[in-house]
C-alpha cells in the first residue's frame, strides 16, 4: 500500500511550507516535494500605485530582508527615472544591504540551523531550538544574538527603523550619515569580529561530524548564479550576474537587470505557489540553478577584504570545482558575515561617506525598469512597467527562493531516498529532510508573491495509488 508522509509545517523557516514524501508499495520513496502553501499577491495589488511607492510597498514582503526589496525596487524605479544615484548614497545603501545580510545570516545560522548543528539532528525536538543552544553553548548563543543585533542596529541607525526602514527611496536615500552615527558603528565592530571568529571556529570543529549529511543534503551537480564585479570579486549591490555550470565554467556573464528577463524564465509546478526559475537557453529543468551564499562563493574569485579572502581560499578547498553540497551553505553564510563586517568598516572609513548629497530626483523618463541586487538568500530581481504618469501597470519579482526551488525539491528527494528505508522513519530522519530545506534558508513569504496564475491540481488516490478523480484549475 502506498503511503504519504507529510511534514507540515516545516519548522525553523521564514514562512509556511510543507514537505510530502510519497512511498510506494515496497515502502521506498517514490517522490518528494517541498510545497509553498501561501499566496501573497504583491505583484497584482501594486498595479495602479505610483511607482515611487514601490520600495515602501515591496519592503513589506518580508520582515527579515526588507532592505533587499527596498534596494532592488529602488533600482528598478531609478531605471524608470533614468537617474544615477550620488556615490555616497550608493555607499550608504551598500552598507545597509551588508548590515541586513549579517543579521539575516546570523538569524539563519544561529536561530534556525545551529540547533541541528550544535545539538545534533537527533536531539530532543523540544529543546532543539535557539534556547537549547543558549543553554548548551552559552557563548555561541550570545554571539548569535549579538551578531543579529549588530546588523539590526546599523539598519536602525541608518534608516531609523530596524524593520522596513523608509530611508531608501528612488534616487538615493533620504538622509546623509552623521559623524556621530559613523563613530557609533565603528565602536561596535570589534565585538562583531570576535563573535564571527567564535562562530567560524566552532563550525569548523563540528563540520566533519556531518559528513553523512554533507553527502546527501542537496549534493548534486547544478548551475550557480550570482552577482560579480568585472574583476570577478563578490558583489551585492552593483555588478552583473554570472552563471556557471557544475564544473565552474562560465555559461553566461554580464547579465544586467534589463537583460535578466531575456535570460531567465519562470516555470510553474502544480504543487507549489513558488515558481521555478531557470536559464532559458537550457530550458526547464536543465537550466535550473542555485543562488545564495554557496553560489556567490562558488562564483567569486575574491572577496576584496583580507580576512574573508583567507576564508574564501579555505572554503574553496572543500571541492576541486564548485562546492556542490548544499550543507555548505552554512559555512558560506559565516564567511559572508565576516565579509560584511569588514566591508562595513571599509565603507565607514571612506572619506566621502558623510557627504550631504545623497538623493537624485527625476520624473518618469522610461516606461519600464528593472533592478537587481543580492539578497541574503541570493539574487533578487524587480521588474516594473508604468504608464506616462508613473502608475504601475505590471510588476514581476524573481526571488532567491524561487531560483533555489528546483534544487530544494531535488534535495528533499535525495535526502528522503537516503534516509527513509522500508517505509520506516523516525523524528530525527524527518528532521534531516527538513534540514535540507533549512540549509537553503528559503524565505517563503518572499517567494510566493504572484497571484492569479497558479494552476492547481488536486488528485484523489485510492489506497493502491490509482487516481480516482482529478480536478485541475488553470
Amino acid at each position, binding site marked *: 500500500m502506498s503511503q504519504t508522509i507529510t511534514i507540515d509545517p516545516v519548522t525553523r523557516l521564514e514562512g509556511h511550507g510543507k514537505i510530502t514524501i510519497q512511498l510506494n508499495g515496497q515502502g521506498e520513496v517514490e517522490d518528494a516535494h517541498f510545497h509553498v502553501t501561501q499566496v501573497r499577491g504583491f505583484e497584482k495589488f501594486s498595479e495602479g500605485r505610483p511607482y515611487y511607492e514601490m520600495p515602501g510597498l515591496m519592503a513589506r514582503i518580508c520582515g527579515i530582508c526588507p532592505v533587499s526589496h527596498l534596494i532592488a525596487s529602488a533600482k528598478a524605479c531609478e531605471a524608470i527615472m533614468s537617474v544615477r544615484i550620488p556615490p555616497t548614497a550608493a555607499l550608504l545603501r551598500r552598507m545597509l544591504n551588508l548590515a541586513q545580510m549579517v543579521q539575516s545570516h546570523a538569524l539563519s545560522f544561529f536561530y534556525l540551523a545551529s540547533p541541528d548543528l550544535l545539538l545534533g539532528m537527533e536531539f530532543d525536538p523540544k529543546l532543539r531550538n535557539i534556547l537549547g543552544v543558549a543553554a548548551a553553548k552559552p557563548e555561541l548563543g550570545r554571539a548569535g544574538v549579538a551578531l543579529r543585533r549588530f546588523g539590526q542596529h546599523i539598519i536602525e541607525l541608518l534608516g531609523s527603523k530596524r524593520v522596513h526602514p*523608509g530611508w531608501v527611496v528612488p534616487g538615493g536615500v533620504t538622509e546623509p550619515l552623521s559623524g556621530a552615527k559613523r563613530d557609533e558603528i565603528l565602536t561596535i565592530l570589534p565585538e562583531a569580529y570576535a563573535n564571527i571568529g567564535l562562530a567560524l571556529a566552532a563550525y569548523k570543529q563540528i563540520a566533519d561530524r556531518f559528513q553523512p549529511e554533507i553527502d546527501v543534503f542537496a549534493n548534486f551537480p547544478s548551475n550557480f548564479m550570482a552577482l560579480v564585479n568585472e574583476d570577478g570579486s563578490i558583489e551585492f549591490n552593483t555588478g552583473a550576474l554570472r552563471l556557471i555550470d557544475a564544473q565552474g565554467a562560465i555559461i553566461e556573464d554580464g547579465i544586467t537587470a534589463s537583460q535578466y528577463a531575456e535570460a531567465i524564465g519562470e516555470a510553474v509546478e502544480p504543487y507549489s505557489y513558488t515558481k521555478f526559475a531557470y536559464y532559458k537557453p537550457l530550458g526547464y529543468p536543465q537550466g535550473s540553478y542555485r543562488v545564495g551564499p554557496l553560489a556567490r562563493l562558488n562564483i567569486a574569485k575574491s572577496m576584496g577584504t583580507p580576512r574573508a579572502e583567507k576564508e574564501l581560499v579555505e572554503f574553496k578547498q572543500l571541492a576541486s570545482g564548485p562546492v556542490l553540497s548544499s550543507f555548505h551553505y552554512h559555512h558560506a553564510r559565516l564567511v559572508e558575515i565576516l565579509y560584511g563586517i569588514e566591508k562595513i568598516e571599509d565603507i565607514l572609513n571612506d572619506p566621502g561617506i558623510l557627504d550631504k548629497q545623497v538623493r537624485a530626483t527625476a520624473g518618469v523618463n522610461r516606461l519600464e525598469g528593472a533592478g537587481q541586487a543580492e539578497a541574503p538568500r541570493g539574487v533578487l530581481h524587480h521588474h516594473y512597467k508604468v504608464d506616462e504618469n508613473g502608475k504601475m501597470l505590471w510588476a514581476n519579482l524573481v526571488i532567491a527562493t524561487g531560483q533555489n526551488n528546483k534544487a530544494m525539491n531535488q534535495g528533499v528527494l535525495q535526502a528522503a531516498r537516503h534516509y527513509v528505508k522500508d517505509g520506516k522513519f523516525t523524528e530525527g530522519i524527518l528532521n534531516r529532510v527538513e534540514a535540507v530545506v533549512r540549509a537553503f534558508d528559503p524565505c517563503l513569504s518572499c517567494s510566493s508573491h504572484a497571484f492569479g496564475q497558479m494552476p492547481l491540481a488536486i488528485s484523489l488516490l485510492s489506497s493502491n495509488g490509482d487516481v480516482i478523480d482529478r480536478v485541475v484549475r488553470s
Partner: protein
Amino acid sequence: MSVEADVKTLIIDEQEVSARAGQTILQVARENDIYIPTLCHLDGLSDVGACRLCLIEIKGGNKLVPACVATVQEGMEVSTDTERLRKHRRTILELLFAERNHICSVCVSNGHCELQTLAQEQGVTHVRFPYRNPNLPVDASHERFTADHNRCILCTRCVRVCAEIEGAHVWDVMGRGINSMIITDLHEDWGASSCTRCGKCVQVCPTGALFDKSKIGSDHPKYPDFLPYLNLMREAQ
C-alpha cells in the same frame, strides 16, 4: 444693542464660560482650553459639519449636535466627553477606516495623519465593520501632486480651501452618499484641470489623500497653520 447683551453665559463640562453671541460651541470650548475632537474643521475655513466627530450633548435635548456649527445660547449646558459621545466618535472613526483603503504603514502621512492621531486618541484598537476595500484610482497626472482617493475621507477641506482661500474652486464633490468622490473641475484629470498649483489643498488634507510627489514613506508632515495668518493679513489690507 448694548455690549452686555452680546455676551452669553453657558456651561461646558461643568465649567462656566462666557461667549459672544454667534460664536460656535467649538470656538468657545477652544478659547477655554476644553478639547473637542475635529477632523473636517480647520481654522481659517468655513465649517460644514461633515465629519461629526465634534458632536456634543446639550442638556434638555436628546439630539447630538456638531459643535463646529452649533452656536452658543444663554444658559445652555454642554457635555463634550460622555461615554455616549466617545462611543459615537470611535464608531465614526471605524467607519472611516472601513470605507476606503487606509494602510498606514505605507502611507506618506504615517505619523502625521490627523485620522491616525484621532484613532489613537479615541482608543480605536480595531475596526468592527467589514472593510469595503473599494478599487479606487490614484490620480498621478499632476506635475507636482498626487491624489489617492483610497485615503480620502471626504472632509472637503480641499474643496473649501481652493474655493475660499485660493479662489480657484478647482476641487468639488461628485456623487451622493457612499459614492461621493472629490473631483477636479468637471471630473477631469488633476493634471489637465485649471489647478493653479498653489498646493494649499495638499497642506490642509488631514490624511495622505493629497500629497507632494517628491514625498515618499512617512516623510510628509503638513502645515495647515498658514490659513489663519493668511486670512488675517488679507483682512488687514
